[in-house]
């Protein structure tokens, strides 16, 4: 806490010196317009960064980091702090060296350069991208202490790209083609099989995010956008699309991204991300720093099956619920921001949020999820999260009965 904050609360009759005394920033000169051709956040925001958890993976090359959602507001995620997941590291691939092949059950197998892609009609859409393993640590119980770590494998951007359908039509996809297999140019060869219905529906071959080129770590120059479906399918550095009559059953859709139930049987092809929400503030990394009185409780909600319709918030661990305010009507496969403008009495809270999407699906409790899926699913944990907010405003990740 700076001297100013102390002065503000103990201001003498003479007034707060930050007001009564001229400050250097109100007299001298700041930075010129040539100082930062491409700017970064101010130094005081240096804690609002992606973070990884060392012990989660064997190394940082095949690993993840987390979006600092506890410190963000609104719905757009800046590319600079949007989570990363690589299986072989983030690669540097120039537009000049970029090639995209379409082969398989098509009339003419084609090769596109990057420049070719920019000549097809483009679309713009805001979509969330959530890793299927987001909140995965919570299967075993409350573990990591912060919304960034429990729910930060998500971001939400405005994409510009060409519908996959357009490219498939250009190559002349054949009616025997029931699947497309999509694959990246990095050494992980990350490949996933997508049913043709989805491929022809809303999948984008994207080259811009939030107005500018994709960042290296998000697949520059071209990535796939698969609205509402698990992030692993959003293949980065996209290099090949094969139209096929059956799925490949690649490593990323058998060994990984399959969900083992309590009886040892595993679900496969669990593509859609279930409706989910989390309170981002207050939360362990965003404690209440003021006393009792007005408090804004806020968080994010999303669903891979369509638009968010409603979010409820509980302060007592799920005994009673209040419906929060959505900043805007929910949009399909995009993050919704919710607010509960409330009065805090200074006593402890067990904060929860519960999302409902346009299909009527209601985000389940941990107990409800475990009842169906057991503890070993790893992926698709969309449970209701609980933050225990204490009288001093600090919050902790807990599990409740």
């Amino acid at each position, binding site marked *: 806490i700076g001297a100013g904050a102390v002065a503000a609360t103990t201001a003498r009759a003479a007034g707060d010196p930050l007001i009564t005394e001229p400050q250097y920033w109100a007299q001298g000169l700041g930075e010129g317009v040539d100082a930062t051709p491409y700017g970064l956040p101010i130094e005081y925001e240096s*804690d609002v960064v992606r973070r990884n*958890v060392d*012990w989660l993976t*064997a190394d940082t*090359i095949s690993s993840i980091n987390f979006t600092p959602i506890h410190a963000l507001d609104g719905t757009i995620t800046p590319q600079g702090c949007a989570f990363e997941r690589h299986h072989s590291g983030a690669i540097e691939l120039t537009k000049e060296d970029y090639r995209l*092949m379409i*082969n398989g059950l098509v*009339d003419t*197998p*084609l*090769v596109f350069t990057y420049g070719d892609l920019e*000549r097809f009609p483009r679309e713009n859409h805001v979509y969330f991208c959530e890793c299927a393993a987001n909140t995965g640590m919570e299967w075993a*119980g*409350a*573990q*990591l*202490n912060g919304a960034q770590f429990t729910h930060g494998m998500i971001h939400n951007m405005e994409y510009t790209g060409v519908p996959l359908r357009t490219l498939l039509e250009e190559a002349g996809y054949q009616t025997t083609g029931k699947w497309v297999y999509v694959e990246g140019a990095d*050494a992980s*060869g990350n490949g996933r099989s997508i049913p043709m219905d989805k491929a022809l529906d809303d999948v984008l071959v994207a080259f811009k995010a939030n107005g500018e080129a994709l960042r290296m770590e998000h697949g520059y120059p071209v990535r796939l956008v698969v609205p509402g479906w698990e992030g692993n399918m959003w293949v980065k550095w996209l*290099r090949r699309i*094969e139209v*096929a009559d*059956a799925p*490949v*059953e*690649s*490593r990323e859709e*058998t060994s990984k991204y399959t969900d083992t139930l309590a*009886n040892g*049987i*595993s*679900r*496969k*092809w*669990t*593509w859609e991300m*279930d409706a989910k929400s989390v309170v981002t503030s207050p939360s*362990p990394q965003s404690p209440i720093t003021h006393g009792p009185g007005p408090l804004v409780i806020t968080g994010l909600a999303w669903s891979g099956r369509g638009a968010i319709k409603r979010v*409820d918030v509980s302060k007592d*661990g*799920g*005994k*009673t*619920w209040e419906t929060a305010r959505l900043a805007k009507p929910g949009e399909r496969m995009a993050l919704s921001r919710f607010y509960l403008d409330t009065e805090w009495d200074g006593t402890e809270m*067990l904060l929860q949020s519960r999302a*409902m999407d346009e299909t*009527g*699906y*209601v*985000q*389940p409790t941990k107990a409800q999820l475990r009842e*169906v899926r057991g503890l*070993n699913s790893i992926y698709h944990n969309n449970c209701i999260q609980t933050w*225990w907010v204490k009288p001093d405003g600090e919050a*902790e*990740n*807990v*599990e*409740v*009965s």
Partner: protein
Amino acid sequence: LTFVSPLQAGKLGLGRPALPDEVAAWDLDVRPDGTGLPDGSGDVLTGEEIFADNCAVCHGDFAEGVDNWPKLAGGMGTLDRDDPLKTVGSYWPYLSTTWDYVNRSMPFGNAQSLTPDEVYGVVAYILYSNDLVDEDFVLSRDTFTEVHLPNADGFIVDDRKSAEAHFVTDPCMQNCKDKVEITMRARVLDVTPDTGD
């Protein structure tokens, strides 16, 4: 060679036809029925040597894994227990996946450096490490279809719509439970990295 423009009704005529050599270079995926497998073969003992030289540093001499790096063998019978161990032997439904993944993505840091024969051998060795073949087994396109992985029938297609139909509901708003107790705390576990604030 002149490229023929693929312009047809409703098409923009962008891109150019992919050449056979180009498709061959990138279309490497192998399917459960073996589609995509190249010529070649490899036996367990040759595979063991290649594995020792290229893979064991991370995955262990017996494919049992080193530190946090993936274990490729073992775990049979653990899928319905606490912390199942999922390996090629215990979990993977199709052998094609192993062949394909090793061929395209391993060794980590030097992917696509093995010849088809070497991949056949290494995959034979992984099968052997999982007690799924004898030490004189030779993997090739022909023997490929003889191998059935134990958990081949361990998968069902996503049934959330039916199995979780009760999540479509009119949720409780008041008096939803009698009492609430904290049953687990992250701070007690204390595994969160310090974030410096």
